[in-house]
């Protein structure tokens, strides 16, 4: 995505994200009865929404303790003014928060994935493109702000402060000592109880006295009785509720606050949500859902259980996902282990010495964010569930020209396939609206990207999308192919025919769009004709109206292949599949420029854009596609041209651009370049510089001194790390394709899904696999490759085989 506020290119760009201010003046609505709410939400069951939840399964017994190797820790809390870099994220997949962990004032900035302003946004600007403001297109915004004030617990007056994020339990803890008493608070976001829980305890005879305050951030009436509810100007209703309980002392609701005094321990439970519904027919609303009442019911239900029970329930739920993958990249030194996470990042960058345990922790942190941010609701956009205000850059939206795809590259690769569902469900719920908008608006004569064939079919998207079927900024014709290919890749990992049937209409609609759009032209290199994409912009540089851009050609080529495979698997539309296969055969594919030696980006030998541009759009066939393979199956000149282009793009970029580069270098089996890019993303960000913030969020410096959190690198970098250890495509698994020296001594990864329907456990020593266990989760045949030797594997679903004796 482009930093439009400061686009240095001087090229025409659409309006920046600093559009109209966030709507205010929400209207309070009367409450529906709880009974009516429960009835309706039952009818919606299974759809991603804020709904009544089934009674959680309550585990018995204590969870196994986690290891220090699973923990990030810090020696300072977050500042209220810089929570985006210092707040610790929690989330239950839908409801998220950034927590300050300040002893005297715990602050949670709470977001619901559906808390979006804006709407369908179907009145195009004069240039035939989409408006991109906070009122029309919309923005993800905060749901609420929760503070727990402990007036006598100023940070300046406590000692031994420490805060921990336990990635194995999904648990934030802060400890400190004040006047001889050890105080501890635990914060977690529970999916089974659909609530965020804060549990304050102490040992040594201390007491808690203070206030809990729940507030909206959109100018709502103050909370009363522990809850508030309101309606945004786009008619989205929302609400949140909080309840506090504990032992000893006194707790009472007083106006907008809950006051507590003399409590030996205190539990605060928060829930909330909106009446968003992932249903185009209903205008993406559930008119019967009363969010405030539902939130009150949820906190009341949770508060019937002690905090320890809520925690055990959460940990059991969280671990079911977290433990699907384990990772060791080697052993760090005692000196490295003795440092807190922030010091450790600084030392890693300063001394240049690998810190394999920190690097593994970084990957697991990405998995933590995925589990916390992508379950049962909308998928994660540019910031996931974590905001520090109501004006996130680029609306915190879904950018379809790299960012949302990158967010989900790691879901399957890192053993979190269930977290992918939010992405697929989102696309499917948007499809009717996307189809409608495409049909009505794409051929607008003012749209420079319209089809010159005069035909329109199927669907496509804009560069930005919202959850109301709307697009923002410019049309993005090839966006449909990239989304489709991303969704199809999930099928390749899971092998779920049911899932494939679900996304099949989406693939087919994308094919229909391209069937109507492709132009027939004389082949540039000789006899015959080829099909090329109509006028388009290679994201996000170079000419605005170029035909046959590599980005579109590659994505459509992959789309057509995926569609024909899907049709064959499902036994659908054999005739149309043949048509699509025929189109695919005629697609022009990029050649290598005789001028630059690079794979061409614009069907031109000339470099028409920025040499070191952040996007790797013309390499989309190298990653995430795999048309370009350095294994002899792709003409050497194409591989060389891709490598030359990647080399020219350089190693000096930021966050997601580095992650994408690392993935491409992993595909080209250049382990050290891939590792360097991973290490560069781990550099601590200071003063807004590119790198990793205190809380490990990735920071992108859009202008000097101004760093923006973009979550994509937090997912793209782990995806690159996995790709360095395992490369797969259906029928092919390559072990340790790009293992850097830093991780070579010994390591292991277990539970890695691979394309074709298998899961791999891998151990290595001195850069060579000692053992690879391949388990079928639906796949039947594949080939395991290492060091030039291939071993065929044939398994029935559920079977596993362990391979040994690998040599270089």
């Amino acid at each position: 995505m482009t930093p439009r506020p400061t686009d240095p290119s001087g090229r025409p760009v659409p309006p920046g994200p600093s559009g109209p201010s966030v709507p205010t003046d929400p209207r309070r609505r009367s409450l529906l009865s709880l009974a009516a709410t429960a009835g309706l939400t039952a009818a919606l069951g299974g759809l991603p929404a804020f709904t009544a939840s089934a009674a959680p399964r309550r585990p018995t017994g204590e969870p196994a303790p986690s290891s220090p190797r699973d923990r990030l820790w810090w020696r300072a809390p977050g500042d209220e003014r810089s929570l985006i870099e210092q707040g610790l994220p929690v989330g239950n997949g839908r409801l998220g928060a950034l927590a300050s962990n300040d002893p005297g004032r715990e602050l949670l900035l709470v977001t619901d994935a559906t808390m979006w302003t804006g709407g369908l946004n179907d009145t195009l600007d004069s240039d035939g493109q989409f408006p991109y403001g906070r009122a029309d297109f919309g923005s993800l915004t905060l749901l609420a702000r929760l503070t727990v004030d402990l007036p006598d617990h100023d940070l300046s007056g406590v000692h031994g402060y420490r805060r921990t994020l336990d990635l194995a339990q999904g648990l934030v803890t802060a400890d400190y000592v004040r006047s001889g008493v050890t105080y501890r608070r635990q914060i977690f976001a529970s999916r089974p109880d659909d609530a965020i829980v804060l549990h304050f305890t102490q040992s040594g005879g201390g007491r808690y006295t203070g206030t809990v305050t729940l507030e909206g951030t959109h100018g709502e009436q103050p909370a009363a009785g522990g809850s508030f509810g309101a309606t945004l100007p786009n008619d989205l209703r929302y609400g949140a509720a909080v309840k506090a309980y504990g032992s000893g002392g006194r707790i009472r609701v007083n106006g907008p606050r809950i006051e507590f005094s003399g409590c030996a321990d205190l539990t605060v439970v928060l829930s909330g949500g909106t009446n968003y519904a992932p249903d185009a027919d209903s205008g993406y609303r559930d008119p019967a859902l009363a969010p405030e009442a539902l939130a009150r019911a949820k906190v009341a239900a949770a508060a019937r259980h002690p905090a320890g029970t809520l925690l055990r329930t959460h940990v059991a739920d969280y671990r079911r996902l977290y433990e699907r993958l384990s990772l060791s990249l080697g052993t760090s030194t005692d000196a490295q282990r003795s440092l807190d996470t922030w010091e450790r990042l600084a030392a890693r960058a300063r001394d240049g010495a690998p810190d394999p345990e920190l690097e593994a922790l970084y990957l697991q942190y990405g998995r933590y964010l995925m589990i916390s941010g992508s379950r049962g609701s909308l998928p994660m956009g540019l910031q996931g569930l974590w905001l520090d205000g109501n004006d996130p850059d680029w609306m915190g939206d879904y950018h379809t020209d790299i960012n949302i795809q990158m967010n989900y590259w790691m879901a399957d690769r890192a053993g979190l396939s269930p977290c992918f569902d939010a992405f697929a469900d989102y696309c499917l719920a948007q499809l009717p609206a996307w189809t409608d908008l495409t049909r009505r608006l794409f051929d607008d004569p003012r749209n420079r990207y319209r089809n010159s064939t005069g035909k329109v079919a199927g669907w496509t998207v804009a560069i930005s999308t919202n959850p109301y079927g709307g697009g923002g900024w410019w049309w993005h014709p090839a966006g449909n192919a990239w989304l489709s290919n991303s969704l199809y890749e999930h099928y390749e990992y899971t092998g779920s025919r049911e899932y494939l049937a679900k996304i099949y209409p989406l693939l087919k609609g994308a094919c229909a769009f391209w069937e109507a759009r492709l132009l027939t032209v004389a082949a540039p290199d000789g006899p015959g004709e080829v099909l090329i994409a109509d006028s388009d912009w290679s994201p996000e540089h170079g000419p605005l109206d170029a035909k046959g851009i590599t980005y579109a050609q590659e994505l459509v080529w992959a789309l057509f292949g995926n569609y024909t495979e899907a049709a064959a698997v499902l036994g659908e539309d054999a005739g149309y599949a043949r048509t699509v296969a025929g189109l695919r055969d005629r697609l022009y594919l990029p050649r290598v420029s005789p001028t630059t030696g690079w794979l061409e980006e614009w069907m031109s030998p000339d470099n028409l854009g920025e040499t070191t541009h952040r996007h790797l759009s013309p390499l989309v066939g190298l990653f995430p596609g795999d048309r370009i393979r350095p294994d002899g199956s792709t003409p050497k000149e194409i591989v060389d041209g891709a490598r030359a282009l990647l080399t020219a793009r350089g190693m000096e970029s930021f966050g997601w651009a580095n992650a994408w580069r690392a993935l491409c270098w992993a595909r080209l089996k250049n382990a050290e370049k891939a590792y360097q890019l991973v290490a560069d993303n781990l550099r601590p960000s200071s003063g807004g510089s590119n790198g990793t913030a205190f809380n490990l969020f990735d920071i992108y410096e859009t202008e000097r001194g101004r760093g923006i959190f973009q979550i994509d690198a937090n997912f793209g970098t782990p995806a690159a790390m996995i790709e360095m250890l395992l490369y797969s495509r259906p029928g092919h698994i390559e072990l340790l394709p790009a293992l850097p020296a830093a991780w070579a001594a010994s390591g292991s990864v277990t539970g890695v899904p691979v394309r074709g329907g298998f899961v791999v456990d891998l151990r290595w020593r001195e850069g060579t696999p000692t053992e690879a266990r391949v388990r079928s989760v639906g796949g039947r045949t594949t080939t395991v490759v290492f060091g030039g030797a291939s071993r065929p594997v044939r398994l029935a679903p559920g079977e596993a085989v362990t391979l040994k004796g690998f040599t270089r």
Partner: protein
Amino acid sequence: MRSPSYSVPRTRALRSLTVLALAAGALAAVPPAQADTAAPGPAAKPYMGWSSWSMQSSKYPGLNPDGDYSYLTEANVLKQADALAAKLKKYGYEYVNIDAGWWRDKNWTPHFDRYARQQADPVRFPRGMKAVADHIHAKGLKAGIYLPVGLEKEAYDKGAAPIWNAPGCTTADIVHADLRTTNGWDSAYKLDFTKPCAQKYIDSQARMFADWGYDFLKLDGVGPGSSKSGENYDNVADVAAWQQAIAATGRPIHLELSWSLDYGHVADWKKYSQGWRIDTDVECYCNTLVSWENSVDDRFDDAPAWARHAGPGGWTDLDSLDVGNGAMDGLTKAERQTYATLWAIAKSPLYTGDDLTRLDPYGLSLLTNTEVIAVDQSDAPPAVPVTPSDPQQVWAAKNPDGTLTVALFNLADAPAAVTADFSALGFTGKAAVRDLWNHENLGTHRDRISQALPAHGSRLFKVTPRGQALTWSGVEAEDPANTLAGNASVAGCSACSGGKKVGNLYQGGRLTFHDVVVPKAGTYQIRVSYISGDARSALVSANGNGSTRHTFASTGDWGTVTTVHVPVSLKAGANTLTFDSGSGYAPDIDRIDVPKSS
């Protein structure tokens, strides 16, 4: 604006001893500053009290209802004096200082007697200035008053005003013929002390204050300083005249100088006064009394160089301590504690400008913390930074009893952990740590004390070493085994060990020490001896690894060596250590000392 006045300094010899010892090493053992047991001399300790200027200068609602600076009235001063007596006197606060405007009406029009001496504005002080001093004295407190330096233009009266008790002298006889102006506002004619009448004029003012019963004079707008330089703004002779005039009255009147006094004249300020403001006003002239950026935080950069010049008889004045009421002060709780911490460890006078009738409980606790006040009033020298002046920094002073006063500061805009490594304090092993603000013993710590600090936060500890003194091995910057790059070159330096240093570290200048040998891998606090007439930074790196930029506080001039400790990650055996100016300017390096253990 503001300044106190008093009597003649008498302990110069003793103080120069102190200065020499401090110059030898930041935390070198210092002889107890107050060695003699006779009655304390003037300003034996930093004074404590209240000043009117913070409230006069603020636009905080209600403070100045009759226009700018109108807070200053007899009623308000006496109200504050009463509150000071009731709430703070028992903690050592005693001065009630009237700042600028006592002789000017609400339109700032002045009043003078027939001898060109400032006279009370009858609206502000209907009973005159003596009555105010009498009331203050009756409360067991001391009274302070204020003047700008020079002959105020409005007092000139065409040169015809006679000088009191100086037959034949008129205002024409005390200034230069060309009526050149002076002081920080150019609001006065410069006095010409080659003319005997000039001293008589100062004598007449001092006599007036003594007669009224004042104990303190702030002389303001003094140069070089007060944003001025050059001959017309050199007021050293004025200050000397005041010292002489005060002595002649026989009344001890503390003389305090203001503002942003020139460092190059520190010997003059020490010779003739009891305190010198080193910075511009701490007040923000805004809707609160002060603000963090304008200009509490400046003091962290400016105080270190002055520290070695402070001691009994004369102190570094950091200006008012406005921490008593959070809403009025315009500061967070953490900022207020930090403000008070720096003032105490720098041994600045502790005079608050708050509304003493409206102190909030936290503010009162800050102003009356006896352990913190004791640091300010102790016989130890002012603390100085033992680390670079980075956003997280550590200051320390060695106390006569062998303990250390150690302050941690986090000047960043977000919370951060701050660590005082014991090796940067000169010892290794264990130490007992007491938290002075919280009156709490934190037990025994090994090798370091580290705490989480809020944004702009601080901690103040007494550290009692229970370990061993650290031993060091030093390498001179000019050692021929070192490598110089870019402009870097060896230069003579009389203050430096070995008589030489490496300078010209600018725009790519680089100094690399080779064979920095340590027994085992770890982070070492390298003691860097440097000279830097202004604050400069350098990129420090080991073994060609990534560098860290550190800022080195100004040493005040180019003839004084100071040390700080820079953390460097070293491997066992030989290491290289590089100081790189980068694209800017780095300090001159005298030598480094490497501790024998990490």
